[in-house]
């Protein structure tokens, strides 16, 4: 294979890219979209209460869900694609970028697969020096035995509620104070507990942690704290879960649903639109009827009503959501493709290609698909934005992935919590995230359209 740059100079794609990259908001939205995807792909590395790496093991991998594996699979396949690309094509800036991103993913992937064995729950956490000092002080007090149940409750409050300790220290305090409250303070058992925990905490000295040290689903002791009140940077919700962690993992939910549903819509729309526009006749007529029928289905109403006909678990399954969105939203894409294909088919170069006796799949692949791609991508960008919005609305109503934080679900919880008082951050942050995502997709497809048709 002869070396070939990513974008051949003078080709349609390279001209569109030149016009597109000239537009500041367009490039900005592209960068933001890439950033959102990076956040989604590396969510467990950004926010998780387990260390990424600690002497000889990686506790993260033990807790990986299907979604984590999906993203890792995506990242790995992008590596393979980038490397093949790099080998086949000549060097170009874009390819270098993709390879850089891919190498980073590969490194992290190797890091977590190389050292995977389950660890004791306790060893996942890190305790700051300051917190260790406080624990030692508590220890001293317990050992001096000048600690009645009343003093224990006071200490509990001063540790957990007032100073805003991290969850593990709070647990530790509870566990030690329980000895006193139950009135069965035996030096032997207490010593054993403390020594055991201390040794485990010491083994965490050299661990590497995510930036935000909270799990999105783990309830905590600090309820409804505002941003920068206590250890939660962006506050905590009604169950004491970290808002930032939930936002980061919610990005992953939103983008996974948007990506999968858009892919499904793209495939269905492309196949039906190409068949209908290229072959015409009875194929066209029957497919058009089908398209019109599906177009007449009210998407939101059906999405809300449909789970009644299926088992209750399906209501909370991401695959159900993706399948339903894909199966109800494809007609718009199919109509667009059909129109474009019919327009292309009249053009001289396509007619001459057919007259030359090229096979149908050759004409479609070489001459028709490349020229319908730009407008198709524009409409897919809009669709992806709409899907983010639909996913948020549906999870607001309780339809969508369970056990996985989502922006819509966070807002639904915020509605209940907001009536309690000062918890503006619960309603504002997830909403802003949806707005950002929608804006990115819309600006992206709008400026792509402008780059394709500069005259408008």
């Amino acid at each position, binding site marked *: 294979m002869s070396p070939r740059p990513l974008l051949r100079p003078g080709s349609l794609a390279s001209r569109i890219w030149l016009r597109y990259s000239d537009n500041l908001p367009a490039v900005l939205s592209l960068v933001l979209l890439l950033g959102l995807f990076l956040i989604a792909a590396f969510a467990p590395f950004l926010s998780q209460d387990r260390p990424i790496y600690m002497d000889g093991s990686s506790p993260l991998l033990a807790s990986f869900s299907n979604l984590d594996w999906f993203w890792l699979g995506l990242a790995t396949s992008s590596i393979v694609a980038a490397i093949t690309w790099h080998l086949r094509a000549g060097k170009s800036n874009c390819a270098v970028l993709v390879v850089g991103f891919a190498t980073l993913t590969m490194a992290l992937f190797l890091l977590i697969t190389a050292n995977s064995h389950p660890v004791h729950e306790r060893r996942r956490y890190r305790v700051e020096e300051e917190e260790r000092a406080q624990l030692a002080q508590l220890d001293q007090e317990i050992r001096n035995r000048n600690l009645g149940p009343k003093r224990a409750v006071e200490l509990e409050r001063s540790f957990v509620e007032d100073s805003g300790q991290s969850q593990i220290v709070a647990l530790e305090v509870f566990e030690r104070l329980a000895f006193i409250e139950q009135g069965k303070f035996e030096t032997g058992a207490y010593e054993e507990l403390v020594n055991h925990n201390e040794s485990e905490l010491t083994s965490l000295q050299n661990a590497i942690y995510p930036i935000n040290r909270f799990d999105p689903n783990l309830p905590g002791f600090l309820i409804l704290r505002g941003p920068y009140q206590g250890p939660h940077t962006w506050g905590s919700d009604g169950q004491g879960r970290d808002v930032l962690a939930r936002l980061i993992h919610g990005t992953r939910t939103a983008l996974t649903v948007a990506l999968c549903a858009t892919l499904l819509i793209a495939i269905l729309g492309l196949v039906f639109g190409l068949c209908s526009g290229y072959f015409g006749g009875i194929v066209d007529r029957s497919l058009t009827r089908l398209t019109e029928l599906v177009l007449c289905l*009210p998407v939101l109403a059906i999405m809300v009503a449909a789970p009644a006909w299926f088992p209750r678990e399906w209501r909370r399954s991401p695959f159900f959501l993706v399948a339903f969105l894909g199966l109800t939203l494809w007609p718009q894409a199919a109509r667009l493709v059909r129109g474009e294909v019919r327009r292309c088919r009249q053009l001289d170069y396509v007619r001459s290609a057919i007259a030359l006796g090229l096979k149908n799949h050759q004409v479609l692949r070489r001459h028709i698909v490349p020229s319908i791609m730009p407008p198709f991508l524009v409409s897919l960008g809009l669709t992806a934005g709409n899907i983010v919005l639909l996913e948020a609305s549906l999870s607001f109503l309780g339809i969508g992935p369970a056990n996985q934080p989502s922006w819509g679900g966070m807002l639904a919880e915020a509605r209940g919590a907001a009536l309690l008082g000062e918890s503006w951050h619960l309603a504002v942050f997830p909403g802003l995230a949806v707005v950002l995502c929608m804006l990115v997709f819309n600006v992206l497809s709008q400026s792509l359209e402008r780059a394709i048709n500069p005259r408008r």
Partner: protein
Amino acid sequence: MKIPSTPKFSKRPLSALGILLTILFINFLLIQATDTHRLRQENLGSRQTSPEEIEERIAVFRREFDLDKPIVTRFFSWMKKVAILDFGHGMIDPRPVRTIVGEALSQSIWLQIPSILLFFLIGIPLGVFMAANAGGFFDRILGSLLLGAYAMPTFWVATLLLIYGATSSGYDIFPLEGLSSPKMEGACTWVWLKDRGAHMVLPVFALSLPGVTVIARQTRSAMLETLSSDFILAARASGISERRVIWVHALRNSLLPAATLLGLLLPQLVGGSVVVESIFNVKGIGLLLWQSANARDFPVLQALILLSTILTLVGFVVADFMATRLNPKVSRA
């Protein structure tokens, strides 16, 4: 933010009829596919309805939809019932479905009609104003504001309105939920209207925001296209005032997208208001849909799905009709 293309039913009225028949058939299948066993299981030990009541209602449901008879008999008896709008009795609320849906519809109308009116009364003038000042300061400011408003999810706006408009504002101008205060039954018309208006402000605002942004942006781009055409140049050259050129000559030719949208907004009567109605606790169609989906109230669900699909179809036909009236070229193309 493109207007979705609508099927051209004016050229093929028969195809609309075919779709209607298919929709009816799908609805018939929906009733056949109900799983009463699951309903029975889920109802055991939950909610206010006792197992005996549920058994009784399932029996009524099976009798009403002739689920014990052969499928051909079922189909014809179902068709007969649908023709006279008889959808049986609800499973949670044992009244006839027609009454339940009618009651909810009478609540939804109070939100939907004003918000659809607002779409056009605010959206179109806004779009025309922006197009008249195209490229100017106000156009750019309004343009980015509208893009921001378009990106805001309705349920977020509604939640924020509920939190900051209704609860913590400290004034009692906007009540928290429902469409009327308790004890409003015997009040005089003026007081009742005032109360209803206060209840309507927040939900109607939340419902109309996305539509207003879409219509304003569509009208703006359509106006820009019209204003650059030759007949506008001719109208200006013949000395017609600029205001008349814009609001009469150009506007009439730029109404096509807004008119199409009117048709597309009809089905919103059912689906679009689920979120807003559930936030503001308005007992309308949307909330009814959500509650019956949660409780598996199949007769009500079937009626609602049929209603919203038919509304979508009618919306397409209306959009198509408007398009051909406004621009006869459409029907010939």
